[in-house]
Protein backbone atom coordinates (compact mmCIF):
# COMPACT_ATOMS: atom_id res chain seq x y z
CA UNK A 1 0.00 0.00 0.00
CA UNK A 2 2.70 2.41 1.05
CA UNK A 3 4.66 1.90 -2.15
CA UNK A 4 1.63 2.54 -4.30
CA UNK A 5 1.00 5.89 -2.66
CA UNK A 6 4.38 7.21 -3.65
CA UNK A 7 3.42 6.88 -7.33
CA UNK A 8 0.00 8.32 -6.76
CA UNK A 9 -0.82 10.43 -9.82
CA UNK A 10 -3.00 13.48 -9.93
CA UNK A 11 -0.43 15.92 -8.60
CA UNK A 12 -1.75 15.73 -5.03
CA UNK A 13 1.73 15.07 -3.75
CA UNK A 14 3.08 18.04 -5.65
CA UNK A 15 0.27 20.29 -4.49
CA UNK A 16 0.85 19.28 -0.90
CA UNK A 17 4.55 19.96 -1.28
CA UNK A 18 3.90 23.46 -2.56
CA UNK A 19 1.26 24.12 0.10
CA UNK A 20 3.62 22.94 2.83
CA UNK A 21 6.36 25.27 1.65
CA UNK A 22 3.90 28.16 1.41
CA UNK A 23 2.70 27.48 4.96
CA UNK A 24 6.24 27.20 6.25
CA UNK A 25 7.55 30.27 4.43
CA UNK A 26 6.71 32.93 7.05
CA UNK A 27 8.18 30.80 9.82
CA UNK A 28 11.35 30.20 7.84
CA UNK A 29 11.75 33.90 7.13
CA UNK A 30 11.23 34.83 10.79
CA UNK A 31 13.67 32.18 11.99
CA UNK A 32 16.34 33.35 9.57
CA UNK A 33 15.80 37.03 10.38
CA UNK A 34 15.42 36.89 14.15
CA UNK A 35 17.38 33.80 15.16
CA UNK A 36 20.04 32.89 12.63
CA UNK A 37 20.97 36.35 11.47
CA UNK A 38 21.49 37.74 15.00
CA UNK A 39 23.48 34.76 16.24
CA UNK A 40 25.77 34.79 13.19
CA UNK A 41 26.12 38.56 13.19
CA UNK A 42 26.84 38.37 16.92
CA UNK A 43 29.76 36.03 16.41
CA UNK A 44 30.85 38.19 13.45
CA UNK A 45 30.73 41.41 15.49
CA UNK A 46 32.79 39.83 18.26
CA UNK A 47 35.78 40.09 15.89
CA UNK A 48 35.30 43.83 15.45
CA UNK A 49 35.77 46.92 17.51
CA UNK A 50 32.24 48.10 17.08
CA UNK A 51 31.22 51.46 15.75
CA UNK A 52 27.46 51.77 16.13
CA UNK A 53 27.21 54.51 13.50
CA UNK A 54 29.29 52.75 10.86
CA UNK A 55 28.78 49.03 11.39
CA UNK A 56 30.57 46.79 11.92
CA UNK A 57 33.53 49.04 12.77
CA UNK A 58 37.18 48.02 12.65
CA UNK A 59 38.29 44.44 12.38
CA UNK A 60 40.35 43.49 15.40
CA UNK A 61 40.72 39.73 15.21
CA UNK A 62 40.62 37.94 18.54
CA UNK A 63 41.28 41.11 20.56
CA UNK A 64 37.88 41.02 22.27
CA UNK A 65 38.33 37.38 23.26
CA UNK A 66 41.89 38.00 24.48
CA UNK A 67 40.55 40.93 26.49
CA UNK A 68 37.95 38.68 28.10
CA UNK A 69 40.50 36.03 28.98
CA UNK A 70 42.72 38.64 30.61
CA UNK A 71 39.83 40.31 32.44
CA UNK A 72 39.80 39.36 36.12
CA UNK A 73 36.20 40.56 36.42
CA UNK A 74 35.22 38.15 33.66
CA UNK A 75 36.75 35.23 35.53
CA UNK A 76 34.98 36.27 38.71
CA UNK A 77 31.73 36.36 36.76
CA UNK A 78 32.39 32.89 35.31
CA UNK A 79 33.13 31.57 38.79
CA UNK A 80 29.95 33.24 40.07
CA UNK A 81 27.94 31.45 37.40
CA UNK A 82 29.33 28.15 38.66
CA UNK A 83 28.42 29.18 42.19
CA UNK A 84 24.86 29.96 41.08
CA UNK A 85 24.71 26.52 39.50
CA UNK A 86 25.97 24.74 42.62
CA UNK A 87 23.49 26.58 44.85
CA UNK A 88 20.60 25.84 42.50
CA UNK A 89 21.55 22.17 42.46
CA UNK A 90 21.89 22.00 46.22
CA UNK A 91 18.84 24.05 47.15
CA UNK A 92 16.30 23.94 44.31
CA UNK A 93 16.77 21.21 41.77
CA UNK A 94 15.72 18.19 43.82
CA UNK A 95 12.74 19.83 45.52
CA UNK A 96 10.10 19.32 42.80
CA UNK A 97 11.25 15.71 42.32
CA UNK A 98 10.77 14.93 46.00
CA UNK A 99 7.50 16.85 46.07
CA UNK A 100 6.18 15.00 43.01
CA UNK A 101 6.94 11.62 44.55
CA UNK A 102 5.25 12.63 47.81
CA UNK A 103 2.20 14.10 46.07
CA UNK A 104 1.90 10.97 43.94
CA UNK A 105 1.59 8.92 47.13
CA UNK A 106 -1.53 10.73 48.29
CA UNK A 107 -3.66 9.14 45.53
CA UNK A 108 -7.12 10.63 46.05
CA UNK A 109 -5.91 14.14 46.90
CA UNK A 110 -3.25 14.17 44.19
CA UNK A 111 -5.16 16.59 41.96
CA UNK A 112 -5.87 19.11 44.70
CA UNK A 113 -2.27 19.13 45.92
CA UNK A 114 -0.99 19.57 42.39
CA UNK A 115 -3.24 22.59 41.99
CA UNK A 116 -2.35 24.05 45.40
CA UNK A 117 1.36 23.78 44.73
CA UNK A 118 0.95 25.04 41.21
CA UNK A 119 -1.01 28.25 41.83
CA UNK A 120 1.64 30.26 43.72
CA UNK A 121 4.23 29.41 41.10
CA UNK A 122 2.41 31.29 38.37
CA UNK A 123 3.38 34.58 39.98
CA UNK A 124 5.87 36.31 37.67
CA UNK A 125 9.51 35.85 38.63
CA UNK A 126 10.17 39.58 38.99
CA UNK A 127 7.25 39.93 41.41
CA UNK A 128 8.51 37.11 43.61
CA UNK A 129 12.07 38.37 43.44
CA UNK A 130 11.00 41.84 44.60
CA UNK A 131 8.83 40.39 47.34
CA UNK A 132 11.78 38.43 48.71
CA UNK A 133 14.05 41.41 48.30
CA UNK A 134 11.84 43.32 50.75
CA UNK A 135 11.75 40.24 52.95
CA UNK A 136 15.55 40.24 53.27
CA UNK A 137 15.77 44.02 53.69
CA UNK A 138 18.06 44.52 56.73
CA UNK A 139 16.28 47.53 58.29
CA UNK A 140 12.61 46.69 58.03
CA UNK A 141 12.53 43.26 56.39
CA UNK A 142 10.61 40.38 57.87
CA UNK A 143 13.67 38.10 57.97
CA UNK A 144 15.51 40.09 60.63
CA UNK A 145 12.31 40.56 62.63
CA UNK A 146 11.64 36.82 62.72
CA UNK A 147 15.28 36.13 63.56
CA UNK A 148 15.04 38.69 66.37
CA UNK A 149 12.08 36.74 67.80
CA UNK A 150 14.36 33.71 67.98
CA UNK A 151 16.91 35.82 69.81
CA UNK A 152 19.41 36.03 66.98
CA UNK A 153 20.89 39.38 66.02
CA UNK A 154 20.10 41.05 62.70
CA UNK A 155 21.96 40.06 59.57
CA UNK A 156 22.75 41.91 56.37
CA UNK A 157 21.40 39.11 54.13
CA UNK A 158 21.74 40.29 50.54
CA UNK A 159 24.56 42.63 51.51
CA UNK A 160 26.49 39.83 53.16
CA UNK A 161 28.83 37.95 50.84
CA UNK A 162 28.48 34.76 52.86
CA UNK A 163 24.67 34.78 52.85
CA UNK A 164 23.73 36.31 49.54
CA UNK A 165 23.57 33.07 47.55
CA UNK A 166 21.60 31.36 50.28
CA UNK A 167 19.11 34.24 50.27
CA UNK A 168 18.80 34.07 46.51
CA UNK A 169 17.85 30.42 46.33
CA UNK A 170 16.07 30.04 49.64
CA UNK A 171 12.68 31.05 48.14
CA UNK A 172 12.56 28.06 45.83
CA UNK A 173 13.33 25.78 48.72
CA UNK A 174 10.16 26.96 50.45
CA UNK A 175 8.00 27.56 47.43
CA UNK A 176 8.40 24.43 45.37
CA UNK A 177 6.10 23.31 42.64
CA UNK A 178 5.08 24.86 39.40
CA UNK A 179 5.54 23.51 35.95
CA UNK A 180 8.32 21.10 36.94
CA UNK A 181 6.04 19.43 39.47
CA UNK A 182 3.39 18.95 36.79
CA UNK A 183 5.92 17.38 34.42
CA UNK A 184 7.40 15.09 37.08
CA UNK A 185 3.92 14.01 38.19
CA UNK A 186 2.95 13.24 34.59
CA UNK A 187 6.11 11.17 34.19
CA UNK A 188 5.40 9.27 37.42
CA UNK A 189 2.04 8.11 36.02
CA UNK A 190 3.88 6.33 33.20
CA UNK A 191 5.93 4.00 35.37
CA UNK A 192 4.51 0.51 34.79
CA UNK A 193 2.70 -0.82 37.83
CA UNK A 194 4.23 -4.26 37.27
CA UNK A 195 7.68 -2.95 38.12
CA UNK A 196 6.51 -2.00 41.60
CA UNK A 197 4.79 -5.33 42.04
CA UNK A 198 7.91 -7.18 40.96
CA UNK A 199 9.98 -5.12 43.40
CA UNK A 200 7.49 -5.88 46.15
CA UNK A 201 7.71 -9.60 45.44
CA UNK A 202 11.48 -9.30 45.69
CA UNK A 203 10.99 -7.83 49.15
CA UNK A 204 12.10 -4.31 48.33
CA UNK A 205 11.30 -1.72 51.00
CA UNK A 206 9.81 1.70 50.26
CA UNK A 207 13.16 3.42 49.92
CA UNK A 208 14.50 0.67 47.68
CA UNK A 209 11.46 0.92 45.42
CA UNK A 210 11.97 4.67 45.09
CA UNK A 211 15.66 4.14 44.41
CA UNK A 212 15.37 1.30 41.88
CA UNK A 213 11.96 1.82 40.27
CA UNK A 214 10.70 5.39 40.66
CA UNK A 215 13.88 7.37 40.03
CA UNK A 216 15.03 5.30 37.03
CA UNK A 217 11.48 5.57 35.69
CA UNK A 218 11.63 9.35 35.52
CA UNK A 219 15.34 9.71 34.79
CA UNK A 220 14.76 11.05 31.28
CA UNK A 221 12.82 14.04 32.48
CA UNK A 222 15.20 14.60 35.39
CA UNK A 223 18.01 14.72 32.87
CA UNK A 224 16.09 17.11 30.61
CA UNK A 225 15.57 19.53 33.48
CA UNK A 226 19.20 19.08 34.51
CA UNK A 227 20.32 20.14 31.03
CA UNK A 228 17.96 23.12 31.06
CA UNK A 229 19.36 24.03 34.45
CA UNK A 230 22.93 24.06 33.13
CA UNK A 231 21.89 26.32 30.28
CA UNK A 232 19.89 28.59 32.60
CA UNK A 233 22.68 28.82 35.15
CA UNK A 234 25.08 30.18 32.58
CA UNK A 235 22.49 32.62 31.28
CA UNK A 236 21.42 33.93 34.66
CA UNK A 237 20.91 37.66 34.62
CA UNK A 238 17.54 39.20 35.42
CA UNK A 239 16.90 37.89 38.92
CA UNK A 240 20.44 38.86 39.95
CA UNK A 241 19.93 42.28 38.42
CA UNK A 242 16.73 42.84 40.39
CA UNK A 243 17.89 41.31 43.65
CA UNK A 244 21.46 42.49 44.09
CA UNK A 245 22.54 44.23 40.91
CA UNK A 246 25.57 41.94 41.01
CA UNK A 247 26.59 42.91 44.54
CA UNK A 248 27.77 42.86 47.20
CA UNK A 249 31.14 43.76 45.76
CA UNK A 250 30.49 41.91 42.51
CA UNK A 251 30.11 38.60 44.32
CA UNK A 252 26.95 37.59 42.46
CA UNK A 253 27.60 39.25 39.11
CA UNK A 254 27.07 36.70 36.35
CA UNK A 255 28.69 36.77 32.93
CA UNK A 256 25.57 37.98 31.17
CA UNK A 257 24.98 40.66 33.78
CA UNK A 258 28.55 41.86 33.29
CA UNK A 259 27.95 41.87 29.54
CA UNK A 260 24.70 43.77 30.05
CA UNK A 261 26.47 46.41 32.11
CA UNK A 262 29.18 46.72 29.48
CA UNK A 263 26.54 47.26 26.83
CA UNK A 264 24.27 49.67 28.66
CA UNK A 265 26.72 51.57 30.87
CA UNK A 266 29.93 51.65 28.82
CA UNK A 267 28.23 51.29 25.40
CA UNK A 268 30.86 48.65 24.66
CA UNK A 269 28.68 46.42 22.49
CA UNK A 270 31.44 44.38 20.91
CA UNK A 271 32.79 43.34 24.30
CA UNK A 272 29.24 42.55 25.51
CA UNK A 273 28.60 40.47 22.41
CA UNK A 274 31.93 38.70 22.82
CA UNK A 275 31.04 37.67 26.35
CA UNK A 276 27.54 36.62 25.31
CA UNK A 277 29.14 34.57 22.52
CA UNK A 278 31.49 32.89 24.99
CA UNK A 279 28.49 31.98 27.16
CA UNK A 280 26.73 30.70 24.05
CA UNK A 281 29.69 28.49 23.11
CA UNK A 282 30.03 27.18 26.66
CA UNK A 283 26.36 26.19 26.89
CA UNK A 284 26.28 24.69 23.40
CA UNK A 285 29.41 22.66 24.07
CA UNK A 286 28.12 21.66 27.51
CA UNK A 287 24.78 20.47 26.17
CA UNK A 288 26.37 18.44 23.40
CA UNK A 289 28.82 16.87 25.83
CA UNK A 290 26.06 16.02 28.28
CA UNK A 291 24.01 14.45 25.47
CA UNK A 292 26.97 12.34 24.34
CA UNK A 293 27.66 11.14 27.87
CA UNK A 294 24.09 10.01 28.45
CA UNK A 295 24.00 8.22 25.11
CA UNK A 296 27.18 6.37 26.13
CA UNK A 297 25.73 5.53 29.53
CA UNK A 298 22.55 4.20 28.02
CA UNK A 299 24.39 1.78 25.73
Amino acid at each position, binding site marked *: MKKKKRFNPGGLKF*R*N*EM*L*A*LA*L*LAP*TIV*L*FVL*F*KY*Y*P*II*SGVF*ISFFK*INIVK*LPGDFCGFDNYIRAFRDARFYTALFNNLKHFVYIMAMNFWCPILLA*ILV*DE*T*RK*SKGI*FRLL*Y*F*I*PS*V*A*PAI*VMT*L*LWKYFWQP*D*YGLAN*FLLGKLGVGPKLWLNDKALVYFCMYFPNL*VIVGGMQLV*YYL*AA*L*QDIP*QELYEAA*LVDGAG*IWQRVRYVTLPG*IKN*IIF*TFFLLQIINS*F*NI*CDNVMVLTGGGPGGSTESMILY*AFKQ*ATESMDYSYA*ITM*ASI*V*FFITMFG*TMLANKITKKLEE
Partner: protein
Amino acid sequence: MAVMKSIELKTKKGKCISVLLIILLSIGAVIQFLPLLWMILATFKTEAELTSAIPHVFPANWSFKAYFEAFSKYHIMDNFSNTLIICASVVLLQVTNSAVAGYALSKLKPRSGEFLYMMFLGTMMFSGTALMFPLYIMMTQLGLIGSKLALILSSSVWAYSIVLFKSFFDNIPQELVEAASIDGASSLRIFVTMIIPLSKPVLAVNILNTFMAVYNDFLYPLMLLPNEKDWTVMMRLYMMDKLGTIPHNVIYVLMVAAVVPILIIYLFVQKNITEGVSTTGLKG
Protein backbone atom coordinates in the same frame (compact mmCIF):
# COMPACT_ATOMS: atom_id res chain seq x y z
CA MET B 1 0.32 3.90 40.54
CA ALA B 2 2.56 4.78 43.31
CA VAL B 3 5.38 3.48 45.39
CA MET B 4 3.24 2.14 48.24
CA LYS B 5 0.78 -0.65 47.48
CA SER B 6 -2.83 -0.56 48.60
CA ILE B 7 -2.25 -3.61 50.80
CA GLU B 8 0.54 -1.79 52.57
CA LEU B 9 -1.68 1.22 53.11
CA LYS B 10 -4.15 -0.92 55.04
CA THR B 11 -1.56 -1.84 57.66
CA LYS B 12 -1.17 0.36 60.70
CA LYS B 13 2.22 1.63 59.59
CA GLY B 14 0.93 2.43 56.12
CA LYS B 15 -2.03 4.38 57.50
CA CYS B 16 0.30 6.37 59.74
CA ILE B 17 2.56 7.21 56.84
CA SER B 18 -0.23 8.38 54.58
CA VAL B 19 -1.83 10.54 57.28
CA LEU B 20 1.55 12.09 58.08
CA LEU B 21 2.13 12.68 54.40
CA ILE B 22 -1.14 14.53 53.95
CA ILE B 23 -0.48 16.68 57.02
CA LEU B 24 3.02 17.48 55.78
CA LEU B 25 1.85 18.37 52.29
CA SER B 26 -1.00 20.48 53.65
CA ILE B 27 1.40 22.51 55.79
CA GLY B 28 3.63 22.91 52.76
CA ALA B 29 0.70 24.05 50.65
CA VAL B 30 -0.27 26.68 53.21
CA ILE B 31 3.31 27.96 53.32
CA GLN B 32 3.20 28.39 49.54
CA PHE B 33 0.50 31.00 49.91
CA LEU B 34 1.95 32.97 52.83
CA PRO B 35 4.23 35.23 50.75
CA LEU B 36 1.35 36.03 48.40
CA LEU B 37 -0.91 36.77 51.35
CA TRP B 38 1.73 39.03 52.85
CA MET B 39 1.98 40.84 49.55
CA ILE B 40 -1.79 41.43 49.40
CA LEU B 41 -1.94 42.64 53.00
CA ALA B 42 0.95 45.02 52.36
CA THR B 43 -1.09 46.93 49.79
CA PHE B 44 -3.42 48.12 52.55
CA LYS B 45 -0.67 49.35 54.85
CA THR B 46 0.83 52.80 55.07
CA GLU B 47 4.41 53.59 54.11
CA ALA B 48 5.29 54.05 57.80
CA GLU B 49 4.00 50.58 58.62
CA LEU B 50 5.91 49.00 55.76
CA THR B 51 9.23 50.54 56.72
CA SER B 52 8.88 50.00 60.45
CA ALA B 53 11.32 47.65 62.15
CA ILE B 54 8.43 45.84 63.81
CA PRO B 55 6.17 44.58 61.05
CA HIS B 56 2.57 43.59 61.70
CA VAL B 57 0.65 41.00 59.78
CA PHE B 58 -2.52 43.03 59.45
CA PRO B 59 -2.65 46.73 58.63
CA ALA B 60 -3.59 49.08 61.46
CA ASN B 61 -6.12 50.83 59.25
CA TRP B 62 -7.31 49.21 56.07
CA SER B 63 -6.66 51.81 53.44
CA PHE B 64 -7.22 51.68 49.71
CA LYS B 65 -5.15 54.80 49.15
CA ALA B 66 -2.30 52.90 47.52
CA TYR B 67 -4.68 51.48 44.94
CA PHE B 68 -6.02 54.91 44.02
CA GLU B 69 -2.50 56.30 43.85
CA ALA B 70 -1.20 53.45 41.71
CA PHE B 71 -3.92 53.90 39.14
CA SER B 72 -4.43 57.66 39.15
CA LYS B 73 -1.03 59.06 40.09
CA TYR B 74 1.34 56.40 38.76
CA HIS B 75 -0.84 55.31 35.81
CA ILE B 76 -0.06 51.63 36.03
CA MET B 77 -2.89 50.94 33.60
CA ASP B 78 -0.64 52.27 30.81
CA ASN B 79 1.88 49.58 31.58
CA PHE B 80 -0.80 46.93 31.47
CA SER B 81 -2.05 48.09 28.10
CA ASN B 82 1.52 48.10 26.75
CA THR B 83 2.02 44.56 28.01
CA LEU B 84 -1.32 43.47 26.61
CA ILE B 85 -0.59 44.88 23.14
CA ILE B 86 2.80 43.17 23.05
CA CYS B 87 1.57 39.85 24.45
CA ALA B 88 -1.44 39.67 22.15
CA SER B 89 0.61 40.46 19.05
CA VAL B 90 3.27 37.90 19.87
CA VAL B 91 0.72 35.22 20.72
CA LEU B 92 -1.18 35.85 17.52
CA LEU B 93 1.93 35.86 15.36
CA GLN B 94 3.79 33.04 17.02
CA VAL B 95 1.04 30.57 17.80
CA THR B 96 -0.53 30.90 14.34
CA ASN B 97 2.80 30.45 12.62
CA SER B 98 3.84 27.55 14.82
CA ALA B 99 0.51 25.73 14.41
CA VAL B 100 0.63 26.09 10.65
CA ALA B 101 4.29 25.09 10.51
CA GLY B 102 3.68 22.12 12.79
CA TYR B 103 0.82 20.97 10.58
CA ALA B 104 2.86 21.33 7.40
CA LEU B 105 5.76 19.37 8.89
CA SER B 106 3.62 16.68 10.46
CA LYS B 107 0.90 16.02 7.92
CA LEU B 108 2.01 17.38 4.54
CA LYS B 109 5.56 16.08 4.96
CA PRO B 110 7.42 18.15 2.36
CA ARG B 111 10.69 16.71 1.08
CA SER B 112 12.73 19.32 2.92
CA GLY B 113 10.68 18.82 6.09
CA GLU B 114 13.37 16.97 7.97
CA PHE B 115 15.93 19.66 7.24
CA LEU B 116 13.59 22.50 8.13
CA TYR B 117 12.60 20.87 11.40
CA MET B 118 16.25 20.53 12.36
CA MET B 119 16.76 24.16 11.38
CA PHE B 120 13.96 25.23 13.74
CA LEU B 121 15.09 22.89 16.51
CA GLY B 122 18.67 24.13 16.31
CA THR B 123 17.59 27.56 17.50
CA MET B 124 16.61 26.11 20.86
CA MET B 125 20.31 26.22 21.62
CA PHE B 126 20.45 29.97 21.05
CA SER B 127 19.71 31.42 24.43
CA GLY B 128 17.83 34.68 24.65
CA THR B 129 20.86 36.32 26.17
CA ALA B 130 23.11 35.39 23.24
CA LEU B 131 20.61 36.94 20.83
CA MET B 132 19.89 40.01 22.89
CA PHE B 133 22.81 42.27 21.97
CA PRO B 134 22.90 41.48 18.24
CA LEU B 135 19.14 42.01 18.13
CA TYR B 136 19.60 45.37 19.80
CA ILE B 137 22.11 46.39 17.12
CA MET B 138 19.85 45.06 14.39
CA MET B 139 16.89 47.03 15.74
CA THR B 140 19.06 50.15 16.00
CA GLN B 141 19.90 49.79 12.33
CA LEU B 142 16.25 49.34 11.47
CA GLY B 143 15.38 52.36 13.59
CA LEU B 144 12.97 50.33 15.69
CA ILE B 145 14.43 50.99 19.14
CA GLY B 146 11.65 52.38 21.31
CA SER B 147 8.98 50.76 19.16
CA LYS B 148 6.89 47.88 20.40
CA LEU B 149 7.44 46.25 17.03
CA ALA B 150 11.09 45.66 17.97
CA LEU B 151 10.04 43.54 20.92
CA ILE B 152 7.23 41.80 19.04
CA LEU B 153 9.50 40.80 16.16
CA SER B 154 12.29 39.70 18.48
CA SER B 155 9.93 37.26 20.19
CA SER B 156 8.07 36.25 17.04
CA VAL B 157 9.34 32.67 16.79
CA TRP B 158 9.95 29.95 19.30
CA ALA B 159 11.05 26.47 18.22
CA TYR B 160 9.49 24.95 21.33
CA SER B 161 5.97 25.84 20.13
CA ILE B 162 6.61 24.14 16.82
CA VAL B 163 7.88 21.05 18.63
CA LEU B 164 4.72 20.95 20.77
CA PHE B 165 2.41 21.36 17.78
CA LYS B 166 4.27 18.90 15.57
CA SER B 167 4.39 16.17 18.20
CA PHE B 168 0.71 16.68 18.94
CA PHE B 169 -0.25 16.49 15.26
CA ASP B 170 1.97 13.42 14.83
CA ASN B 171 -0.36 11.61 17.22
CA ILE B 172 -3.38 12.34 15.03
CA PRO B 173 -3.59 9.31 12.70
CA GLN B 174 -2.53 10.01 9.14
CA GLU B 175 -5.42 7.78 7.96
CA LEU B 176 -7.90 10.31 9.29
CA VAL B 177 -6.34 13.03 7.20
CA GLU B 178 -6.13 10.79 4.17
CA ALA B 179 -9.77 9.74 4.45
CA ALA B 180 -10.83 13.37 4.47
CA SER B 181 -8.57 14.13 1.56
CA ILE B 182 -10.10 11.27 -0.46
CA ASP B 183 -13.51 12.78 0.28
CA GLY B 184 -12.25 15.82 -1.55
CA ALA B 185 -11.31 18.15 1.32
CA SER B 186 -8.31 20.31 0.61
CA SER B 187 -5.34 20.16 2.97
CA LEU B 188 -6.06 23.63 4.20
CA ARG B 189 -9.68 22.78 4.91
CA ILE B 190 -8.62 19.66 6.79
CA PHE B 191 -6.41 21.80 8.95
CA VAL B 192 -9.09 24.34 9.78
CA THR B 193 -12.13 22.09 10.19
CA MET B 194 -10.55 18.91 11.50
CA ILE B 195 -7.15 19.44 13.08
CA ILE B 196 -7.79 22.72 14.89
CA PRO B 197 -10.89 21.51 16.78
CA LEU B 198 -8.91 18.46 17.91
CA SER B 199 -6.00 20.56 19.14
CA LYS B 200 -7.54 22.52 21.98
CA PRO B 201 -5.13 21.24 24.65
CA VAL B 202 -2.01 21.94 22.64
CA LEU B 203 -3.34 25.32 21.58
CA ALA B 204 -4.03 26.22 25.18
CA VAL B 205 -0.57 25.16 26.28
CA ASN B 206 1.08 27.13 23.51
CA ILE B 207 -0.94 30.28 24.00
CA LEU B 208 -0.22 30.13 27.70
CA ASN B 209 3.51 29.41 27.31
CA THR B 210 3.95 32.22 24.84
CA PHE B 211 1.87 34.66 26.85
CA MET B 212 3.80 33.87 30.02
CA ALA B 213 7.17 34.10 28.33
CA VAL B 214 6.38 37.55 26.94
CA TYR B 215 4.56 38.73 30.06
CA ASN B 216 7.45 37.77 32.32
CA ASP B 217 10.16 38.92 29.94
CA PHE B 218 12.24 41.64 31.41
CA LEU B 219 15.66 41.90 29.75
CA TYR B 220 14.40 42.38 26.19
CA PRO B 221 12.01 45.23 27.03
CA LEU B 222 14.78 46.79 29.10
CA MET B 223 17.03 46.83 26.03
CA LEU B 224 14.52 47.56 23.33
CA LEU B 225 12.03 49.93 24.96
CA PRO B 226 13.92 52.81 26.59
CA ASN B 227 11.00 55.27 26.64
CA GLU B 228 8.91 55.35 29.78
CA LYS B 229 5.63 55.40 27.83
CA ASP B 230 6.36 51.95 26.35
CA TRP B 231 7.36 50.21 29.57
CA THR B 232 5.82 46.84 30.29
CA VAL B 233 4.55 45.85 33.72
CA MET B 234 7.71 43.96 34.65
CA MET B 235 9.93 46.83 33.60
CA ARG B 236 7.85 49.33 35.52
CA LEU B 237 8.15 47.17 38.63
CA TYR B 238 11.91 47.05 38.30
CA MET B 239 12.18 50.77 37.67
CA MET B 240 9.87 51.63 40.59
CA ASP B 241 12.02 49.57 42.91
CA LYS B 242 15.24 50.97 41.49
CA LEU B 243 14.10 54.56 41.82
CA GLY B 244 13.68 54.17 45.57
CA THR B 245 11.29 57.10 45.95
CA ILE B 246 8.03 55.35 45.12
CA PRO B 247 6.03 54.38 48.24
CA HIS B 248 6.29 50.68 48.96
CA ASN B 249 2.55 50.17 49.12
CA VAL B 250 2.23 51.38 45.52
CA ILE B 251 4.89 48.90 44.44
CA TYR B 252 2.98 46.18 46.28
CA VAL B 253 -0.20 47.18 44.45
CA LEU B 254 1.58 46.81 41.12
CA MET B 255 2.92 43.43 42.23
CA VAL B 256 -0.55 42.19 43.14
CA ALA B 257 -1.96 43.60 39.92
CA ALA B 258 0.76 41.83 37.95
CA VAL B 259 -0.19 38.45 39.40
CA VAL B 260 -3.95 38.75 38.87
CA PRO B 261 -4.19 38.37 35.07
CA ILE B 262 -1.84 35.39 35.05
CA LEU B 263 -3.73 33.71 37.87
CA ILE B 264 -7.06 34.12 36.10
CA ILE B 265 -5.73 32.72 32.83
CA TYR B 266 -4.13 29.79 34.60
CA LEU B 267 -7.26 28.85 36.49
CA PHE B 268 -9.18 28.85 33.22
CA VAL B 269 -6.82 26.62 31.32
CA GLN B 270 -5.56 24.58 34.26
CA LYS B 271 -7.17 21.41 32.99
CA ASN B 272 -5.78 21.92 29.52
CA ILE B 273 -2.25 22.31 30.83
CA THR B 274 -2.11 18.91 32.44
CA GLU B 275 -3.83 17.42 29.43
CA GLY B 276 -1.38 19.17 27.14
CA VAL B 277 1.58 17.96 29.15
CA SER B 278 0.48 14.36 28.90
CA THR B 279 -0.61 14.42 25.25
CA THR B 280 2.32 16.22 23.70
CA GLY B 281 4.58 13.37 24.71
CA LEU B 282 7.25 15.68 26.05
CA LYS B 283 7.47 14.19 29.48
CA GLY B 284 10.43 12.04 28.54
